[in-house]
């Protein structure tokens, strides 16, 4: 069957799933035989000249990427083997930085925090986003656009303003949250003043801010699924809940995977959220409870000015995220006919 795919992360996808024929035609580069090699260079040049305007029009991206993407990538790799502090010549220190990372408590605390935060908010946020999307997608909801906008508004709200507001709401002594909770007998919850309170507060802010974004992706995914499947299931005697779990979710798997992969990188790369909520410790939170790898790298580079060390941290972090994402895509994104529809 041709399942509608919004974002397809499956790796070994069957050939018939993508329009192979057409793609091949579009991107075909004629393969030259060896004896034509000398002529090939000339012909390549000819091709380039022929398509010079096309190349010219796509060049801005490549130029900008070369300057702001590729060059920093290469340069930070070089920096990773130095103890450069922002000025003066590069003194190479070999693998000393890597050795330091192994003993760096803040960095490993940051990695742990990324994992903890992932488990604290990603399942909740993904589930809520899917449920909201399904509700909004059903024909029974009136004012679809209004609710969609309402849920999306936090995403476009300035994070600094939001973080500041959450600080006020969550203040242990003066905050609205605690006055509200005190009616139910929970007095003085240390939202921002304890390790787990800080993490919970941060998750609250993240879910508030990112729920709309994830919901819109889910909604886009849902709208590509024909109603027939659900209707068929309902006619066959499935309850709406069963239809949701056994029809919608399997069909939505690529979209859910996409959202989860984004959220994984998001939870290790939290930055604006934690700085806005814990400005006095520059995002680190009580006892480093909310420091994330990206924040730790930023602090080393731009607060302690240890650019070389920060570059090493960045590459270690990149390797970790790369492997993690690969694992997620492989494990959860495999196209197993027996599991899906």
């Amino acid at each position, binding site marked *: 069957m041709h399942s509608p795919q919004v974002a397809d992360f499956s790796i070994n996808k069957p050939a018939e799933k993508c329009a192979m024929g057409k793609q091949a035609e579009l991107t075909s580069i004629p393969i030259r035989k060896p004896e034509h090699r000398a002529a090939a260079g000339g012909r390549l040049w000819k091709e380039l000249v022929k398509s010079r305007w096309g190349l010219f029009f796509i060049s801005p991206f490549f130029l900008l990427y070369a300057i702001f993407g590729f060059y920093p990538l290469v340069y930070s790799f070089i920096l990773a083997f130095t103890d450069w*502090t*922002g*000025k*003066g010549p590069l003194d190479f220190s070999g693998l000393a930085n890597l050795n*330091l990372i192994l*003993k*760096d*408590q*803040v960095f490993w605390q940051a990695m742990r925090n990324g994992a903890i935060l992932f488990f604290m908010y990603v399942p909740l946020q993904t589930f809520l986003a899917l449920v909201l999307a399904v509700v909004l997608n059903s024909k029974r909801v009136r004012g679809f656009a209004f609710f969609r906008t309402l849920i999306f508004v936090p995403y476009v709200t300035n994070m600094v303003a939001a973080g500041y507001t959450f*600080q*006020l709401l969550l*203040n*242990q*002594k*003066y905050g609205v949250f605690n006055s509200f909770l005190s009616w139910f007998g929970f007095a003085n919850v*240390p939202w*921002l*003043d*304890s*390790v787990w309170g*800080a993490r919970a507060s941060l998750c609250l802010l993240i879910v508030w801010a990112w729920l709309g974004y994830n919901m819109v992706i889910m909604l886009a995914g849902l709208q590509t699924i024909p109603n027939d499947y659900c209707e068929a299931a309902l006619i066959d005697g499935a309850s709406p809940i069963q239809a949701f779990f056994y029809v919608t979710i399997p069909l939505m798997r690529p979209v859910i995977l996409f959202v989860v992969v984004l959220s994984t990188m998001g939870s290790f790369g939290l930055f604006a959220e934690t700085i806005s909520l*814990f*400005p*006095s*410790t*520059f995002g*680190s*939170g*009580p*006892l*480093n409870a909310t420091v994330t790898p990206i924040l730790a790298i930023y*602090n080393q580079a*731009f*607060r*302690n*000015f*240890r650019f070389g*060390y920060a570059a090493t941290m960045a590459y270690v972090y990149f390797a970790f995220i790369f492997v993690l994402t690969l694992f997620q895509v492989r494990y959860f994104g495999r196209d197993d006919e027996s599991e899906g529809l």
Partner: protein
Amino acid sequence: MYSKLTILRLISLGLALALILPACAPGPAPTAEIREVVMTVEVTTIVEGTPQVVIQEVTATPEPLPVQAPKPEGRIVLWGWSYDVMESTGLLDDFNAEYPDIEVEIVTYNSGDTYQNLRLALSAGQGAADVVQVENSHLAGFVAMGGLADLTDQVAPLMDKMNQYKWKDAELDGKYYAVPWDSGPVVLYYRRDVFEQAGLPTNPDEVSQLVSSWDGYLEVCKTIKAETGLNCFANSKANNDARLYEIILWQQGLGYYNPDGQVTVDSPENVATLEKMSEFWSAGVTSEEVPWTDGWYAELQSLDEPVASIIEASWLGVFLKSWIAGDTAGRWGVAYMPAMQTGQPRASNDGGSTLVITEQSQNKEAAWAFIEFMLARRENQLKQFAFSDFLPALETTYDDHLFIEPDSFFGGQVARKIYLDVAMQIPIGYVYGPYYQLMHDHVSTAIQRYATGALSAEATLKEAATQIRQETGMP
């Protein structure tokens, strides 16, 4: 023929003068002496077709220049967060009147952004402002990095006139790179109304007596808590920012390292200091509010449920008076901070700024004119002080009548006299240094660990010290 020779002579003379004059013209100070210059000139004369070389002595006596050197001109950009004091007191207008050809552009960044922009601009080699405000806490780091203009000659006449401890972070290898602006003498601000409610004396002298040591202060705090239920001061456990701890270290001449450059974060003295601070937590007399957040402002400005005191530098005065707690005028008093043990210094420093000129600046003379005008002149420093409680680092201001004037915000107390007294006693501390930010961050976390009961003071400081030693390479 003769006339030709004369012309040549005149040209030579002209050349000689041209060589001398520009060297005199942009003299930095009106002291440039004008001397008679004697030089030998080779004059080639052509007399009837045969070239002859005649060596002649030419005496060039240029017209005496006007005594006043030209004033520096150009545009200077300033980065920092405290220039509004200069604007509010009209000093900026005064400066423009004296130097009409200097255009001053102020770019206001908070301290974190200032340091980040300065660091990146120095690193990039371009884009830095001409004059930048740098706190003493971060100054040594920038001096060590390089890229600041050497001001050794300019500050030489100021060396004896400024607070001595302020020069420590400005110096590297005998050269000086910054001019002190204000000092941060630490005092105890206390609420007279709360003290009265608790049945304690409210007179500053008596309060100073009462809190002569940290133990005495603890007793006062307990009394306040028992009598009024109010907290004594803010010192968060889970979000501790280490500022009070640093103040107490500095008071004892301690810090994060010693004069030999060894990390002392886990020294017995530091551990004892942290344990002393924790007695206030055990007694339950502190609030959890984090400085510079709304809860902290709320308890400082509250009329019916305030925090009883705060130990902070004099620069807090202007903030209390204006935007933090303007409505509490008359309710505050200023006392000396407690000593570690009775009889020890009751003086410490927190913060305090300097101004630096960057090496990249195209208008260093104009930049220096600005700094000299604002920081090195008695009357201008006093204008800022009257407005802001930024205690001038310039000691020649200290005999002004401002220091004996009562301050209505502090209930008519002569508060500035205490600032002055404290400033003169501040010991040399080893809190600030090239690695201040890094050390501060690790120690803050260590204090949070200890305060929330995760680890003992010794263990947590040991861990912080290990991390600091690893990252800085200091012994």
